[in-house]
């Protein structure tokens, strides 16, 4: 009498081999198979949606910055805030030529993310009133080998119309 059918036994062994191989690959695979970082811009409630369309000169615009680290190691990050136009947007290889207004620094472990409320100033006296400007947020990474900051190629921007500050 054949208590344990040979074919059933073979299927069970095949299943355990597959499960074992999948488990081993999960244990041996590197932490970050595809290294990348990400930056996102959220509204003042830290949600995707109600972005300001008009801002006042001298106003601190409340927004949220989202960052994610998938480099396989802790990473010190810096978000540079600049004001530019359609002609001075960053590219994948270089940052915007505009001057930095404010910087925000963050340290994230591998797989870590942060959603941080920020206040971005619309500076006065730069002839921005009545113009459409781009609020640019560039992501820079600290390179410990170079002892300096390197542009990550990631940025986000938001177009706003600048209006004259209301008389208090």
């Amino acid at each position, binding site marked *: 009498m054949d208590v344990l059918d040979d074919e059933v036994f073979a299927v*069970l*062994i095949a299943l*355990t081999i597959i499960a*074992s191989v999948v488990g081993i690959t999960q244990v041996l695979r590197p932490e970050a198979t595809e290294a990348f970082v990400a930056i996102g811009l959220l509204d003042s409630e830290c949600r995707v949606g109600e972005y300001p369309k008009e801002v006042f000169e001298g106003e601190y615009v409340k927004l949220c910055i989202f960052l994610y680290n998938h480099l396989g190691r802790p990473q010190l990050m810096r978000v540079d805030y600049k004001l530019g136009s359609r002609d001075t947007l960053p590219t994948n290889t270089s940052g915007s030529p505009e001057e930095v207004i404010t910087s925000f620094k963050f*340290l994230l472990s591998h797989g870590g993310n942060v959603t941080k409320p920020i206040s971005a100033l619309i500076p006065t006296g730069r002839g921005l009133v009545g113009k459409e400007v781009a609020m640019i947020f560039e992501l820079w990474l600290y390179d410990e080998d170079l002892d300096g900051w390197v542009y990550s190629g990631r940025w986000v921007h938001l177009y706003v119309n600048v209006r004259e500050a209301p008389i208090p």
Partner: protein
Amino acid sequence: MSYFLTLYEDVVGLSKLGADVSDLVNDLSVALELINDGSPESLSRAQSLLKGIELRVESLKSRASYEVIYVNLIKYLTVAILASIPIATYYLLPRVYLGIWFRIRRRWVVRYGRT
């Protein structure tokens, strides 16, 4: 900031070796927020926090090689256990199955002839 960067570089170096630096990164992140705040009170708190982190980094550095060996040992032990599961199943499953099969049928009575 240079003190912070020195410690950050040490922590990244330890992380690349395979040491668990998650607690250190969390504390460094808190120190960075205090430095960003910039007030004298926050900077003083950041300084004392960084001193504590430096001690822990030095301690971790001194036992980093053991830590790496331990992490690798756990990793390859897990691989060995996973690899042995099909072999163990091949040898043990028929025995276990038979044991259960007989246990379930131990009260059975075998009779010969017609019922």
